[in-house]
């Protein structure tokens, strides 16, 4: 295990360290990053507590809350989940041993990277064998999640457990059209949710990630979940995925897209440099062990303003032409401008063009042809165009049809990987 150099790590307060000393060594650690989640966190922590008591009654367990400065009493709700022998706790459920639930507020502004770093540090100091991170937004959590996430780590020696979900076909389009297929094509593994807010990992993987020296890098901090998954892949850790039921659709405004892309696509692009020797030699893709029911998409109607998507694509093509000239090859840009013309009645952003676009953006990101953040921002309107096409193409399809189309896109990413390699160090 890599050593945590506490003297250099200002993110652990003395009080938190004192609490960790009292917790001691644990078998199971559940980390909960929060920031003003009082409305939802109570039921989530209850489910975590119940899951620990039900599935890990004999194990030494701790719930660790890394809070970004909540002012709504979130940490207090989490700390209440502790079960110990102190007086006045007779109403608590029975446990064989003490269950710790502790909280710390990190000093920086709310950031998932800092929260994850805090949880990883706690996991290492407590020598946790199996750790889970549960998002404060996971209101659909059940007690079964604890065993689904942690059991493969604890008993089967996996290093990373990622979730798979049933999603609405209109939900997670960034995932199905970019993150999943590109991660799969690059790294050769069919990981459906490479960007997972709920996951579980082994102590050794946690330590390895904690020991990396890139925590000061804003891209790493913002996209820590993706970096974590990609680090596990590149480190050839044992990965599996488990089915977690239906992913609740969270309506998001268009303004949420760019931050989401920074956290995910930005992380994916930035990981390509250090992992080049790994991904550049991979061809094709392999399945990874998956437990639970098959993932499928939900076909109930979900309102998406497709007209607005196309408008934002068209506007983006027009307004960002000079930016695209720096990023894209002339044929790709020309083709995009062609499909963006208003007279194109049957707008279609093809899979081949989309893959070519994404790969050219990745290469541009690598070469830093302009500010990397601007590159990610510039991809947003193009993604909206692709999302429009995906929704249109799948508007009347069955679940199998949708899955078939996603699979076809994945194969396109894999087929065109030589093109990525060609432009990676070459010209546009």
């Amino acid at each position, binding site marked *: 295990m890599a050593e945590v150099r506490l003297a250099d790590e200002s993110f652990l307060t003395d009080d938190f360290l004192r609490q960790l000393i009292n917790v*001691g060594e644990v078998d199971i650690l559940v980390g909960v990053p929060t920031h003003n989640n009082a409305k939802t966190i109570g039921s989530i922590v209850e489910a975590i507590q119940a899951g620990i008591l039900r599935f890990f009654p004999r194990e030494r367990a701790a719930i660790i809350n890394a809070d970004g400065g909540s002012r709504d009493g979130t940490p207090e709700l989490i700390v209440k989940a502790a079960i110990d022998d102190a*007086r006045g706790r007779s109403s608590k459920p029975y446990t*064989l041993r003490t269950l710790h639930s502790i909280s710390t507020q990190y000093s920086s502004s709310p950031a998932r990277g800092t929260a994850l770093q805090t949880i990883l540090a706690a996991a290492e100091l407590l020598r946790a064998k199996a750790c889970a991170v549960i998002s404060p937004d996971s209101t659909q959590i059940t007690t079964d999640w604890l065993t689904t996430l942690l059991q493969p780590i604890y008993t089967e020696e996996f290093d990373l457990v990622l979730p798979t979900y049933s999603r609405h076909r209109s939900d997670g389009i960034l995932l199905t059209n970019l993150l999943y297929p590109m991660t799969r094509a690059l790294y050769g593994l069919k990981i459906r949710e490479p960007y997972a807010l709920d996951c579980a990992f082994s102590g050794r993987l946690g330590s390895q990630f904690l020991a990396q020296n890139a925590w000061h890098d804003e891209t790493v901090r913002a996209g820590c979940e993706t970096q974590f998954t990609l680090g596990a892949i590149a480190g050839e850790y044992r990965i599996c995925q488990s089915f977690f039921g239906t992913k609740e659709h969270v309506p998001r405004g268009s303004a949420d897209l760019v931050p989401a892309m920074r956290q995910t696509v930005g992380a994916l692009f930035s990981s390509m440099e250090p992992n080049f020797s790994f991904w550049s030699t991979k061809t094709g893709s392999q399945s990874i062990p998956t437990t639970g029911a098959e993932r499928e998409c939900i076909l109930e109607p979900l309102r998406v303003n497709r007209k607005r998507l196309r408008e934002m694509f068209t506007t983006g093509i027009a307004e960002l032409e000079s930016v695209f000239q720096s990023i894209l090859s002339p044929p790709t840009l020309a083709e995009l401008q062609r499909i963006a013309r208003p007279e194109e009645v049957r707008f279609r952003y093809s899979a081949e063009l989309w893959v070519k676009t994404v790969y050219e953006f990745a290469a541009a990101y690598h070469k830093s042809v302009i500010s990397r953040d601007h590159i990610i921002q510039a991809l947003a309107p193009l993604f909206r165009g692709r999302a429009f096409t995906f929704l249109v193409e799948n508007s009347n399809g069955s679940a199998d049809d949708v899955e078939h189309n996603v699979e076809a896109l994945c194969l396109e990413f894999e087929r065109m990987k030589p093109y990525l390699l060609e432009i990676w160090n070459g010209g546009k």
Partner: protein
Amino acid sequence: MPLKQDALWYKHAIIYQVHVRTFYDSNGDGIGDFEGLDQKLDYLEELGINAIWLMPFFPSPLRDDGYDIADYNSVHSSYGTLEDFRKFLGSAHQRGIRVIIEMVLNHTSDQHPWFQQSRSSRENPRRDWYVWSETDTRYHQARINFFDTEMSNWAWDPVSKSYYWHRFFSHQPDLNYDHPAVREEMWNVMKFWLEMGVDGFRLDAVPYLVEREGTNCENLPETHAILKELRRRLDEQFPGKMLLAEANQWPAHLRPYFADGDEFHMAFHFPLMPRMFMGVKLADRKPITEILQQTPEIPPSCQWCLFLRNHDELTLEMLSDIERDYMNDAYAEDKAMRLNLGIRRRLAPLLDNDRRRIELMNGMLMSLPGTPSIYYGDEIGMGDNVNLGDRNGVRTPMQWSGGWNGGFSAADPEKLYAPLIQDPVYGYPAVNVFSQRRTQHSLLNWMGRIIAVRKTTGVFGSGSIEFLYPANHRILAYVRQLGNETILVVNNLSDAAQAVELDLRRYKGNILIEMFGKNIFPRVGELPYLLTLGPYHFYWFRLRRI
């Protein structure tokens, strides 16, 4: 050192439990005897114990190691004579050691003349001294204690062609305590031994004396009334003598056995014992503090009797299912180690022969509220033999030396009542009194030291207890207090070194004096008192305001 007059002597006793058969064979017949026990009293005096609890030594067919008594007023011929017993008793008293004997009130052997007469005919005057029935369906709510061997609490008697009641083995018919003559006769039995000079009785299986339809036939008011009557007679005729209850019950159910200080003087705290093992295995004080939180106050003249191991299996009856499963997995992985609802193992093997854990467990035994009882051989770390059947694996001969038969007997090894432990780790060549006496830091000498330290204060026997709840759950800390004497006990239940901060502000200004080495520790101030403890380490501190 003759016996001191002290009505509450049992509160400051260190009890040593021994079966005369197991201790020392003086006549070379392969079976321990009273003459042999007498010869080994110097050893017990040196160890520091001041009370001996003798397991049944009465004439018996020995189908339950003497708990099946065939004559209450005599000594089994294998162990000697009544005169031998008297001599041993006198020798013990001369050394300041009191003697507690076993009294099995609930049942006799089916070979006892009372039962033979009772079964002989329905008209026999002793017919109703036992519980007879035409059916085997009465008292069906009563649990079966020995469910590994018994299918029912009723057994068919082919002689009198009816069923008789037995809460234990079927060869142990229960006496009928609704019969006045039975109650009178059992008091006469106790009086017989009290007049000889014994200092107390360990009353076996007391919850089961009376049966009533519609109940589980345990802890009934009628049973308590009988026990109170025995106590009244004891106090009137033999003041200073003691009654110790064997009642494997929850603390709340045990409490009535103390009544208003007019029933039992002492009772074993059965639920605490397995939780001490659990706490050490879990490295978590929670099981221990929780059961002691649930333990009710008892009258000032009464006392809990604490033990780590005894002649029976480590009982798991007073545990929940989840706790019982855990204990079985943690301490009896080999199914052969399990018996009824318990684990038939000795202290040292249970603790993996880990000297640190053995010391820690004994440290808690000696410092928690109550009178400690040490099972013979555990003071040297004897092992067990699960292949001997029933509970005989923890009743093997005492290991005195590495010589012939472990120094227990001059008989041919084949004649011994049970084979000695011979494995490489616990066998008598490796574990014996002779070699441990020669080694300053042996377990035996350490046990002598901790007993001596305990005896320097009355706090452990009579003081109050207050638990501290440091945030480090691996630390079990408590303050014992009696008058102006205060002792702080801190136990590390884990296998790793621990730091702990104790809130001792109410003792601000005191200095801590470690009771074994008598070294001074820093004065208590306003800040949390920081201690570090090695794996399974414990401290006893005397608090002194100087």
